[in-house]
């Protein structure tokens, strides 16, 4: 991993040395999105997750600037980006922390001088007013003194607000993306619900045993003889003891959540089992008649 970082041009001061690729999360992505938005390539929420919109925006940028189009923010791309755009970290972070919807175009006047992208001027004014009403708070303090000459005439709050933050030495905001990757087919709530079930059913089990319980839930969702939804499977009457006795409402730990993600990512330690039981406590005779596949921790998994 080291060699790549040496190529890095020092112009890319703000970015860290890493190559940013699709799926990444974090500070560099926030900066990437802000800079792309500054140039008018990216017009969605700055959320710190490198998703498809960011990917297309980056590729368009690479195309317009004559870079190799690979959708990766490598050293060269980052250097070009830094050169072409401005990034006001504190402002962006502050808005994210306040939960504001905003667009980061820098001071509009500045943009007029520096934006080489023909698209940018057209888009910026259109976007800015629309977004402003949401965040009236910061506008008032800043408006009067900030010189935003050409845009001053209309009473829109946009130019002053965006120009203001540089002066206000905003407190160092903790960096946190406001969105998260979730695997295709599942919302974070689905994952949470499954983690609840896994924790209630298998919190004393080894990690693999927890993944296995999550995998059984997924196998059931995919099976024709069970409900087709995660919640349907979990709350099916009599299906899980943890649901019947209310243990499902214990707060799950991170490990349970991770086990669920592993299972969703295709790890199935059970060999496609649809049932499992604890031989020490199982009361139903019927369950012993199922063909058994394997044992993990205290649970026996069967077909």
């Amino acid at each position: 991993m080291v060699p790549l970082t040496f190529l890095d041009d020092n112009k890319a001061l703000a970015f860290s040395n890493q190559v940013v690729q699709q799926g990444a999360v974090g500070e560099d992505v926030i900066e990437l999105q802000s800079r792309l938005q500054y140039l008018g390539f990216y017009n969605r929420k700055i959320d710190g997750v490198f998703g498809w919109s960011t990917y297309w925006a980056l590729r368009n940028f690479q195309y317009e600037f004559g870079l190799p189009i690979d959708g990766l923010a490598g050293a060269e791309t980052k250097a070009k980006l830094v050169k072409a755009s401005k990034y006001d970290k504190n402002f962006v972070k502050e808005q994210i922390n306040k939960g504001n919807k905003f667009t980061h175009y820098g001071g509009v006047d500045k943009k007029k001088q520096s934006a080489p992208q023909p698209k940018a001027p057209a888009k910026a004014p259109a976007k800015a007013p629309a977004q402003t009403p949401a965040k009236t708070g910061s506008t008032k303090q800043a408006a009067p003194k900030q010189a935003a000459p050409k845009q001053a005439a209309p009473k829109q709050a946009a130019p002053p607000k965006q120009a203001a933050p540089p002066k206000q030495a905003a407190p160092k905001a903790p960096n946190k993306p406001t969105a998260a990757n979730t695997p295709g087919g599942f919302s974070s709530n689905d994952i949470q619900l499954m983690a609840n079930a896994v924790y209630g059913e298998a919190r004393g089990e080894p990690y693999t045993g927890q993944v296995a319980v999550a995998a059984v839930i997924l196998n059931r969702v995919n099976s024709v003889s069970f409900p087709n939804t995660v919640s349907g499977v979990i709350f099916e009457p009599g299906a899980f003891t943890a649901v019947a006795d209310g243990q499902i409402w214990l707060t799950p730990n991170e490990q349970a959540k991770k086990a669920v993600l592993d299972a969703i990512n295709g790890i199935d330690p059970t060999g496609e089992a649809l049932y499992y039981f604890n031989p020490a406590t199982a009361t139903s005779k019927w369950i012993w008649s199922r063909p058994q596949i394997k044992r993990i921790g205290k649970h026996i998994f069967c077909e």
Partner: protein
Amino acid sequence: MIRGIIIGVLAVGVAGTAYWGYQEHREKNAILINAENNYQRAFHDLTYEMDLLHDKIGTTLAMNSRQSLSPSLVEVWRLTSEAHNDVGQLPLTLLPFNKTEEFLAQIGKFSYQTAVRDLDKEPLSDEEYDTLKVLYKQSGDIQNELRKVQHMVLENNLRWMDVELALASGKETTDNTIIDGFKTVEKTVSGYDESDFGPSFTNMQNKDENYNKIKGKRISEKEAISIAKKYMKFDGNAEVKVTENGKGSDFGFYSVSIRNKKTGQEGSMDITKKAGYPIWFINYREVDKQKISLNDANLKAAAFLKENGYKNLELFESMQYDNTGVFNFVTSENKIRIYPEAIKVEVALDNGNIIGFSAEEYLKSLNDKRKIEKPVLTSEQARKKVNPRFKVMEERQAIIVNDLNKEVLCYEFLGTIDDDTYRIFINAADGTEEEVEKLKNAEEVYDEVI
């Protein structure tokens, strides 16, 4: 004497009453939990169906041909009726919920009418397309609101029974997030495909093939151990346990679990008896703070696969979850992607070690004698089959498993309609629209809501 008897009788009576009371209490609790679970199910089902509905309308927007449009509209119709049903099961009798039901009925009607129509003779008009777009947006809003409520319900352990009690007693003023949440949902009324895990997902029917396509000699337990050690990077002095599969399994495999007492490292792996391919492994440990980038992790994952003899794999998807990166690789032969042959590798972003691996789909579809036929259509011809509103950004040929469980050669188009990204597969032989997949955007974190 009499006093003694009376005391005795009373004591027995008190004890009996206490016991009876306790029984009643337990029964009441059991029934409460049961009722609660039913409400919970209906509610989580509802949100899930709204997720599906939103995505399904989204994919419908991207479709072009009747063959795929009609089934998709039927699916929308089915989902609305299920969601409707779920709304009906919620204890909302005292809440105004008719707008949402109206909305569902509206989508249902629209999708039904268009689905049963012969779309070849009378394709979707521009107005209808716009209607669909509006419905798409509205369902997105509802989905978002419902998710917020769901998040609060899960986060704060809210009970539906409490809602019911609150509603029954008319004490709505207490902080009742569920009711408030649903009111918002109601006001706004103005993602995830069910068992559709994208093109690389081999579905259940396929599963009975039991790794028949793997060729090789049966391995011994000892070999299984050494393979496991090699993949998971365990040194000599680890504690190992091997078990064979039980009778219930459709195929033969060894389960190896290894523990290194010194480092606390724990790994488990299943290996096919035939040829000794790892099916999956977990190398579990707590992952520390992120130190390497997703890109570096990607290189590590690729190197790991190469080192273990997997050939022609190409990265197809990468995702970061907290401090781990998950990479999905598929086979690529002469630049043709073979989606069924997919391997997932999980990398810890603190030191770049491989902590998870899953090759189930890969092993089920692995086929080195696959003959890839020349496409009949040219890429331009295939492009014409795609929805005209779809803006193609990337194009390639790919093999996917279609609805009939057959492998088909397709043109794959990756592109956008408005803000959403889609992957569309057009059969390279006859131009059928085999699959339209709406790709996921990052999901908002709802923490600030609480």
